[in-house]
C-alpha cells in the first residue's frame, strides 16, 4: 500500500520532511551538524559529562520487589524520574542545546504541552546562557500554572498560543512558524521523537542512553536480557530511548503504551495508532488522529504529556514491521496503576509513566515468575499531584 522509500529521511514509508521550502536548507545544515557531532568524541564526552554531573546519571534500574511478588513476572523500573527536572526530557535537551551551541546559535525555542519539555529546555538554556522562548497553548498555560512559573523563574519567556485549540499541537505550529522566520540565529529544540528529519533520529540518539544503561544494568543483575521492555508513547521519546538498544535483540519484546483516554470507542483518546490513519503533520508522515475531511483532531488524555494527535515516525514503522507492539490503556487504568505504585513501592510516578505501568501489571499477571520486564519510569508525579487529587475527588480532569 505505501511506497517503501530507500531514503535515510524515512523509516519505511514514515517520516520525511514536510516543511516549507524556507526550512529545507536549515534542516540540511542541522543534519550535517548533527552527524558531525555524534561522530566527534569531544562532543560525546561533553554530552556524557553533563548527563553525569548535571542530570545525575546513570539512573538506577530498580527491582520493584513488592509489585513483582504481587503480580508475577519480575518488574524492573528504569528510574528516569530521578533525573534533574524529574523526567527523561532533559537527556534530549542537553544533547540538542550542546548541538545548538556548536552551530553558533544564541537562541532556543521549544513547544510544550504540560510544561515538562518547556521546563527542561528553560533549564538547559539557563545552564548554557541561551535566550529561551517556550510556546505553550493558552489552555495549557491555564492548566499548568506552576510549570509556567518554573520556566519564568529559569529566565525563559513563555508565549501563549491562542490559535486553533490552544494546546500542544497549536504550540508546535507556532514554534514551527517562528523557527521558519528566525532559523538563522535560533535553534528549535523539539521535545519528542517527532518532526521533520533529522529530529526523530536526533531525539532517539539523545534518548538512547536509557536503553544503553538499562541493558548493561540488567545483564549485571540478571545475567540475561529482559523478555520485554515497555514504555508509554505520546510522541514517543522515552519509548524510542527505551527501545533503541533492544531493537536488534529479537528475543526482547518491545511494547509501547498509548493513551486510551476515555476509551477508543468514545473518540476521546490520544492513541494515534489505534485507528491507523496516516497523514502529514509537523513535518512528518505518520499515524495521526484526523477527521473525515483530513483535519487533525484533538487528542484527549488525562495525561498532558501524552495528549498529542500524532506519533513519532519510527514508532509507526516499528508497528507496521511488527517489531514493536502498541497497546493503549485508559485514563482510569492509568490512575489505578499510579496509586498502586505509590502504595506498593513508595514511588509517585508521572501520569504518563503510569500508563506504561498499567499495561506492565496486566502482562506480569500472565507471565511466569522468572520472566523479566523492564519498564521506563519516564517521570515523577510531583507535577500531577493536583490532577490526581481532582481525579480522586471525581472532578473533570480530561479536558
Amino acid at each position, binding site marked *: 500500500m505505501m*511506497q517503501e522509500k530507500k531514503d535515510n*529521511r524515512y523509516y519505511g514509508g514514515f517520516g*520525511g*520532511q*514536510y*516543511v*516549507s*521550502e*524556507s*526550512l*529545507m*536548507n*536549515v534542516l540540511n545544515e542541522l543534519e550535517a551538524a548533527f552527524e558531525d557531532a555524534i561522530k566527534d568524541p569531544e562532543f560525546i564526552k561533553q554530552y556524557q559529562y553533563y548527563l553525569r554531573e548535571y542530570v545525575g546519571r546513570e539512573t538506577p534500574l530498580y527491582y520493584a520487589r513488592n509489585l513483582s511478588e504481587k503480580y508475577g513476572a519480575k518488574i524492573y523500573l528504569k528510574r528516569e524520574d530521578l533525573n534533574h527536572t524529574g523526567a527523561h526530557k532533559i537527556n534530549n535537551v542537553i544533547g540538542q542545546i550542546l548541538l545548538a551551541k556548536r552551530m553558533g546559535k544564541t537562541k532556543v525555542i521549544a513547544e510544550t504541552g504540560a510544561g515538562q519539555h518547556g521546563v527542561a529546555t528553560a533549564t538547559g538554556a539557563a545552564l548554557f546562557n541561551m535566550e529561551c522562548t517556550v510556546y505553550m497553548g493558552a489552555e495549557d498555560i491555564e492548566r499548568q500554572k506552576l510549570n509556567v512559573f518554573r520556566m519564568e523563574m529559569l529566565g525563559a519567556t513563555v508565549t501563549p498560543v491562542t*490559535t*486553533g485549540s490552544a494546546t500542544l*499541537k*497549536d504550540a508546535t*505550529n507556532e514554534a*514551527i*512558524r*517562528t523557527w*521558519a*522566520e*528566525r*532559523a*538563522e540565529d535560533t535553534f528549535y529544540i523539539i521535545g519528542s521523537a517527532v518532526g521533520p528529519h533529522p529530529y526523530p533520529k536526533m531525539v532517539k540518539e539523545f534518548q538512547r542512553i536509557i536503553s544503553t544503561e538499562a541493558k548493561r544494568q540488567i545483564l549485571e543483575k540478571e545475567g540475561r536480557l529482559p523478555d520485554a521492555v515497555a514504555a508509554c508513547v505520546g510522541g514517543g521519546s522515552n519509548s524510542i530511548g527505551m527501545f533503541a538498544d533492544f531493537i536488534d535483540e529479537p528475543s526482547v519484546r518491545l511494547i509501547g503504551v498509548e493513551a486510551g483516554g476515555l476509551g477508543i470507542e468514545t473518540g476521546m483518546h490520544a492513541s494515534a495508532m489505534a485507528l491507523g*490513519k*496516516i*497523514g*502529514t*503533520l*509537523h*513535518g512528518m*508522515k505518520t499515524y*495521526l488522529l*484526523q477527521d*473525515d*475531511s*483530513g*483535519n*487533525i483532531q484533538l487528542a484527549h488524555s488525562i495525561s498532558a504529556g501524552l495528549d498529542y494527535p500524532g506519533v513519532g515516525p519510527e514508532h509507526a514503522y516499528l508497528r507496521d514491521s511488527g517489531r514493536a507492539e502498541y497497546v493503549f490503556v485508559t485514563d482510569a487504568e492509568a490512575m489505578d496503576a499510579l496509586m498502586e505504585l505509590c502504595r506498593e513501592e513508595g514511588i509517585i510516578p508521572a501520569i504518563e509513566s503510569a500508563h506504561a505501568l498499567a499495561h506492565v501489571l496486566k502482562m506480569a499477571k500472565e507471565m511466569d515468575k522468572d520472566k523479566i520486564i523492564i519498564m521506563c519510569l519516564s517521570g515523577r508525579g510531583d507535577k500531577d499531584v493536583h490532577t490526581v487529587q481532582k481525579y480522586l475527588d471525581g472532578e473533570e480532569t480530561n479536558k
Partner: protein
Amino acid sequence: MMNRIEEKMAALKQCGKKAFITYMTAGLPDLEKTKELVFAQEQAGIDVIELGIPFSDPVADGPVIQNASYESIQNGTTLVKVFSLMQEIRKSGSNVPIVFMMYYNTVFHYGIKDFAEQCASCGVDGLIIPDLPYEEQQELQEALNEKEGAPILIQLVSPVSKQRIPMILEHARGFVYCVSQMGVTGGSAQFHKNIREYLSEVKKAANIPVMMGFGIRTADDVKPLSDIIDGAVVGSHFINLLRKSNYDSGEVQKYIKEFKMQLNME
C-alpha cells in the same frame, strides 16, 4: 487543452504585462460568496485566483489566514465541497485560472490519485502546497503526470533556497512563486534584506514568470522590484479587505483594477 495558467502567462508576456494574483480562503464567509467573488474578480481582470482549502494546522500561514481557515472549517467547508464549487464555477463558463493553496495532509487524506483526477475534472489549474518541498513531491507529481488536464504543481522558492534554485526550477511550470520574506504569510512589506539579489538570481534561472508574494498590500510595495518580477500575489491583505468591505464585490473590483493598473504603470 492547454493549462489556463500557462495560457494566461503567455498572453501576459505577449503584451508585456505583469500578473496580479489574489488569495482568498474558500468558504469565507460561505461557498456561495466565494463563487460570487470569483466571478467578480474575473470581471475585474484578475489574472490568477488562489483559492485556499482550509486546514486545521496551517503552519505556513500568519494569523489572518489562520483565522480565515479556522472560520471556514467551522462553517463546514471541506475539500469535497470546494470541488463541487469548482464544477459550478466552470459550468458557468468562468475561465479564470484557479490555483488551490492547501496543505499536503488534505491531499494525502483524499487519496493522491483520486485527488489528481478530481482536480482535472473540476478545472483546477494549479496547486500550491507550502509543506510539500521539492524532495517530497515525487508521489504527487507522478499522479499529476499520469492524468491528462491535471493541475500544475507550482514551485515555491525562498530567500534562503540558494543552491536549491536550479533543482526546484528544472521542471517547474506555470510560474514560480517567490516568497518575499522568512516566516509566514501576512507580514508587513519588510521584505528579506537580500530581496533584490535573491529575486534576480531566480529570474536569471527561470524560464517561466517569477511571482512574488508574502507581505504585499499595494502595488507600491513591489514597485522597487518591478524590473525583476513578473507579478505579485496578495493574500492576507486581500482577506482583510474582504472582511472590512463585508465581501463587497464592488470594493474588490476597485482594488483589483487599481492594483493592476499601478502594477503595469511604467
